[in-house]
């Protein structure tokens, strides 16, 4: 097992944003956490990255306890996060953005190979190498941050809402790229999404998170019809299920 989030509870002040959440990711898997706004998805990812510290529970990455480790060391362990809202460095140009994460790598020749690979994957980034990253469109910025994360050569990439604010066509492209990466270089992915439809298609396994707690976990194949997911997502109990007329 590559990543094991074991029973973590995270507080903002007195408020628990996440309670007793456990997530596991195996090497080469795509795991999805879906849940409505405010469910604690981003909190979970930020805790894995070391931005937040859990008040309880542990995070283990390739058999090392990384709970409470600072973010730069987590990154150096091989977890690269693409946070919500993309966070490109708008004042740096595209190439500087891409290369910033390679500073912690020591394999010079490999860095250049990976760099070329990213440019092949996203030709638009190559065309705009010298432009300030702030000038890119939303979709291009999403490509840039995925490329930037890839260049750290992560063993696990976590992505927070890659489809946020993007046109459906571009979202398709993003997921195409992510699935392709898994198939080609065996990249392990932990994706967080609000809409579970797209995530269900790409993922091997999914977790549904609501109100800071895991409501449902399972193989994506078993949950494909979506009924159980819907139930977990909206929190309908058996009795009131049929009152819900919400389109998924």
């Amino acid at each position, binding site marked *: 097992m590559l990543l094991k989030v074991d029973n973590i509870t995270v507080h903002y002040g007195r408020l628990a944003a996440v309670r007793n959440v456990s997530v596991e990711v195996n090497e080469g898997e795509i795991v999805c956490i879906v849940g409505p706004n405010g469910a604690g998805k981003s909190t979970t990812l930020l805790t894995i*990255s070391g931005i937040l510290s859990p008040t309880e529970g542990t995070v283990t990455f390739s058999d090392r306890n990384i709970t409470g480790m600072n973010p730069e060391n987590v990154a150096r362990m091989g977890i690269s996060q693409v946070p919500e809202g993309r966070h490109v*460095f708008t*004042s*740096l140009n595209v190439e500087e953005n891409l290369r*910033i*994460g390679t*500073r912690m790598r020591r394999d010079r020749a490999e860095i250049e190979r990976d760099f070329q690979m990213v440019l092949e994957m996203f030709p638009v980034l190559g065309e705009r190498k010298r432009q300030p990253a702030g000038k890119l469109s939303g979709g291009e910025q999403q490509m840039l941050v995925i490329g930037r994360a890839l260049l750290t050569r992560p063993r696990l990439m976590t992505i927070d809402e890659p489809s946020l604010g993007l046109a459906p066509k571009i979202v398709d492209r993003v997921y195409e790229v992510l699935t392709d990466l898994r198939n080609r270089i065996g990249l392990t992915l932990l994706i967080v999404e609000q809409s579970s439809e797209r995530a269900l298609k790409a993922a091997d396994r999914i977790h549904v998170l609501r109100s800071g707690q895991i409501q449902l976990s399972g193989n994506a194949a078993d949950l494909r019809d979506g009924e159980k997911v819907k139930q977990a997502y909206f929190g309908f109990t058996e009795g009131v299920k049929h009152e819900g007329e919400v389109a998924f």
Partner: protein
Amino acid sequence: MGYILQVIIDALSLGSLYALAALGIGLLFGVLRLINFAHGDFITLGAYALIVPAYGPNAIRFIADFPAPLLIICTILVIVAIALISEFLIFRPLRYATAATLMVGSFALSFVIQNLIIMIYSGRPKSLNLWSELTEIKFLVGDVEIALLPILIVAVTLILLLLLVLFLKRTPWGVQMRAAAEDFKMARMLGVRANFVISLAFVLSAALAAVVSLLFEAQTGILMFRMGTPLMVFAFIATVIGGMGSLVGSVVGGMTVGIVSSVLQAGLPAEVRGYRDVFVFGLVILILLVRPQGLVLSRAARERV
């Protein structure tokens, strides 16, 4: 004509000193969101580092008698060391505190340094000539004599600015600093070490402070325990005028403040000339209201809006 040239050179050299000091404040604000009130005291310490720490009324020359290159290096090293110690003892434990708490912390540091100087060197002003030949050499331009020092100050500032730009644009450390200044958390998630970047900012800021203290000392020839405070105050408002968090803004702001004060000094009628600083500080409030992001809009600020 000659008089106007004199005013221009004075304005530029004063603006240069403010710009250098403002850059020192701006660098730290960029990565740490710290308004370092102690920056002026780093400048003061740079001047006091030149003499033997003794309580007596006279300055006993120490580093001041070294040959110029060694003198400059030693002063920079002393101030860098003091800045790094302050970072480690005070600002590192306070890193996740609010901007206001950090500000109070730097205020306290400033207070401690000033009074340490009183304890060690005494509170009385001392005179110390540094590179007095710089003020003695003069060029005759038309009918006016122009001293070498103000021209040198402008030149040194330009060179340092160029070096700083090259550092920030061309070196990996510089790129890391820019990234951290824009989005500290994201930079850390890409493996940029927080302690390293912050220490680097303190080193650069302190080195700039040391250069300012040498230029200022050469200009004034006097040591006072609060000599850096006015420089800090004007440099601080320069960073506000230029736009907090923008290094270009710090330079523009420093130059603006220097030029505005020199021009007001020369141009205001005698009866209101004394109120010059009132206008300069009033300008700050005006700019805060009309253009809170400063004259130069920093990209980080734009992001947040």
